[in-house]
């Protein structure tokens, strides 16, 4: 029943030529261009991660000095956060899939969409410049007064963050308007796939929170260039003010990173258990609740920074509040599995990995929200492990699941299922070997951002480094089989998974204008109790 050739015309083949890509306003092409860019950033950030892990095999020097190490961990963080994970799911998969899910021809502002890609590239150039021009060594958090004084390229990295912010704001704005205005006839709010709800909540965060980091970075640059004392006490400023500004963005940013991942998981779990989602509205509204509360918890990064005990109490309380909607989502996904028809295809393996890893990431967040315990754990490897479980075990694993899930839609071809499963297992094992020991050494008191460390931690550092190699091998194999499938993969039909959301009703890869005719939506996104679709 499989077609022997890809359907023509499709958005990959028409129109032709480099210019047609660079000037495209097609959301799918822009999504692919974003995908290429963020994968480049991921590889770069990943190389820095491997260098960190190699250096930490031993407490003494392995391959670089202290200053180089400080630069490497800063670049790892800054690149992974600002160039990779924040744009990753919304800008790449969101662009590729969101308009298809809505039955739309494109996003609301296609030219703004292309513009935001160019802004991303422009911002990325500043970051790359900072890498080569005496790389920044402040940590991705740029804490003052260190960042006001250090001799490294803080200004170009701060400007990179400032510029990248606009790319993020434009994408968020574009998606909010698209979701409001371009839904297909019959596609009411409660028939929206949960990925769309998640992107919507993310869009609100992108538009409302990102300006704050932009302004903060401008103030930092002004302090360094013009000597205007805002954060540096030597000039009459207040360094803790910087931390407030920074986390006022960067905590919501955590949810810019994780919410779209949660959206993907809702799609994967329903599609591969062929089951109506349990608690649709609870999941949809918990995304909005998380987005809202996330603006009010920034102070939990600052429990030992000298803020008042009263402020610490309020922030701790609100932090526990944000844990509840996340817990509800996990229970809903679990309940969705009940009496499903569960397949273990590669995307589902990632979804199940996510449940496991995100549970650990979320639960270890409870330790850090508890004031007395956070005093001990703050700025240790426990925190490092916690946010990697959320950001990598959560968002990156969800992203990988989403990539594998929509790959046949985007390219019209299927990757090797065997290698897919092998790599899902390698990523899962490698990740846990890398980061589980970090909870132990963090609890034991190993501070983060340490170039050397007391010998008692060496065994766990060694474990962690070996885990990073397993991860590296997993990603290497994944790159090979995915690239291979783009050219040689088995050609698939419209709907290889038998899923019910709209993007599966058009051809794979879709035509340049997505749908032959505007689809009419008559069923919900997860009506697996009513409708049976044969995989094609």
């Amino acid at each position: 029943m499989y077609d022997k050739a890809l359907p023509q015309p499709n958005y990959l083949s028409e129109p032709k030529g480099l210019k047609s890509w660079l000037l495209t306003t097609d959301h799918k092409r822009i999504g692919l261009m974003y995908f290429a860019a963020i994968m480049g950033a991921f590889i770069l950030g990943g190389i820095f991660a491997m260098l960190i892990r190699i250096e930490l095999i031993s407490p003494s020097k392995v391959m670089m000095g202290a200053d180089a190490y400080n630069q490497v961990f800063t670049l790892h963080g800054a690149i992974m956060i600002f160039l990779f994970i924040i744009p990753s799911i919304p800008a790449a998969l969101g662009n590729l899939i969101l308009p298809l899910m809505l039955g739309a021809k494109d996003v609301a502002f296609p030219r703004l969409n292309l513009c935001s890609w160019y802004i991303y590239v422009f911002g990325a150039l500043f970051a790359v410049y900072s890498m080569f021009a005496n790389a920044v060594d402040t940590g991705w958090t740029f804490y003052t007064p260190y960042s006001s004084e250090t001799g490294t390229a803080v200004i170009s990295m701060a400007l990179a963050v400032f510029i990248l912010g606009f790319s993020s704001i434009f994408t968020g704005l574009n998606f909010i308007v698209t979701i409001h205005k371009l839904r297909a006839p019959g596609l009411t709010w409660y028939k929206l796939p949960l990925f769309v709800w998640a992107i919507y909540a993310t869009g609100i965060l992108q538009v409302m929170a990102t300006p704050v980091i932009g302004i903060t970075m401008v103030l930092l640059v002004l302090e360094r260039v013009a000597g205007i004392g805002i954060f540096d006490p030597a000039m009459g400023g207040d360094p803790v003010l910087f931390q407030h500004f920074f986390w006022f963005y960067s905590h919501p940013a955590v949810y810019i990173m994780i919410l779209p991942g949660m959206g993907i998981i809702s799609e994967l779990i329903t599609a591969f258990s062929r089951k109506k989602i349990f608690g649709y509205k609870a999941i949809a509204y918990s995304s909005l609740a998380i987005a809202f509360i996330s603006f009010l918890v920034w102070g939990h990064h600052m429990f030992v920074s000298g803020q008042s005990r009263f402020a610490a109490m309020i922030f701790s309380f609100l932090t526990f509040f944000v844990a509840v909607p996340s817990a509800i989502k996990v229970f809903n996904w679990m309940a969705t599995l009940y009496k499903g028809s569960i397949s273990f295809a590669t995307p589902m393996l990632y979804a199940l990995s996510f449940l496991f890893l995100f549970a650990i990431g979320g639960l270890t967040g409870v330790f850090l929200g508890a004031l007395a315990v956070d005093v001990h754990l703050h700025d240790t490897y426990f925190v490092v492990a916690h946010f990697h479980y959320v950001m990598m075990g959560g968002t990156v694993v969800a992203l990988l699941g989403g990539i594998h899930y929509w790959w046949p839609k985007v390219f019209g071809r299927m990757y090797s299922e065997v290698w897919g499963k092998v790599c899902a297992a390698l990523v899962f094992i490698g990740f846990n070997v890398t980061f589980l020991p970090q909870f132990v050494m963090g609890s034991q008191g190993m501070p983060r951002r340490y170039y050397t460390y007391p010998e008692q931690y060496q065994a766990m550092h060694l474990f962690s480094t070996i885990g990073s190699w397993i991860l590296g091998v997993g990603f290497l194999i994944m790159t090979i089989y995915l690239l291979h499938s783009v050219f040689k993969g088995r050609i698939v039909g419209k709907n290889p998974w038998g899923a019910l959301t709209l993007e599966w009703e058009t051809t794979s890869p879709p035509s340049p204008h997505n749908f032959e005719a505007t689809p009419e939506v008559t069923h919900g996104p997860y009506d697996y109790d009513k409708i049976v679709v044969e995989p094609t």
Partner: protein
Amino acid sequence: MNNQGTFMMPPAESTLAHEVDALYYFIYYVSLFFFVLIVACSLYFVLRFRRKGKQVERTPDISHNTFLEILWTVVPTVILAIIFVWGFRGYLKLTIVPKDALQIKVTGQRWFWSFDYPEGVNSLNDMVVPVGKPIALLMSSQDVIHSFFVPAFRIKQDVLPNRYTQAWFEAKNVGEYDLLCAEFCGTQHSSMLGKVRVVSTQDYNRWLEEAVGSLGAGMPLKDLGEKLYTSKQCFTCHSLDGTKIQGPSFKGRFGSEAVFTDGSKRTVDENYLRESILNPQAKVVAGYLPVMPTYQSLLKEREVDALVEFIKSLKP
């Protein structure tokens, strides 16, 4: 030290450490319970309801269960509320300094810790405190933000350049405990380590007396300088045998000619040594990095004289 700590936590050596650990382990076991629950249920469901054969089938419409949904909203909320209150109470105990505490002024500086005692004694990277007595720390930084972290005491507090922050602890046992800097502060952040030496009250008083004694009264300047060379950590960067470390060796330094990074030269005399101690960045010797901190606030007038005399005495 009979307390070895647990697999997860280091030895609990302050009066409040056990309370922190109790909450830590409470959260640990609650988390473990929910984690096992989530993983076990998910595993059971995916194995029990795995797809068999190629046949595409409808699945039942199970999208609500009011009892379950209320249960899994209320139970986590209640548990989190308990943890919040518990954590806040512990935080108050950790951060409100007892009135009768012995106060030590802590100064963080790239990349060492300096401690000033009420008796006028100063020590570097070596904080000596009496066992079983609350110690209040009044802290500030000379440069960037540092963070005072003693894992065995479960205390951590950022040390800021523009204001004082406070912390306190009461050590339960005699022993030596690691003091770490937990806020990234530059090149040697991970070497900004100190020790908290907890001693008996008698030993503490004896140490204090000795330290007060060696403030210099009656001691020849050269001998005092030799003592300060060790106690003020000069030896970490300046050798006495000609070895080049972070800074130039003191051996034969006096009277020799120094060449600076800007190409200028001058003979090493008393005034140059004084300037290099109090304002080390003014002239940096060629071939070295400008990493030496100022000792402006750390040395008394007589101590500067003593160091100068000591360096003068080190003939080539």
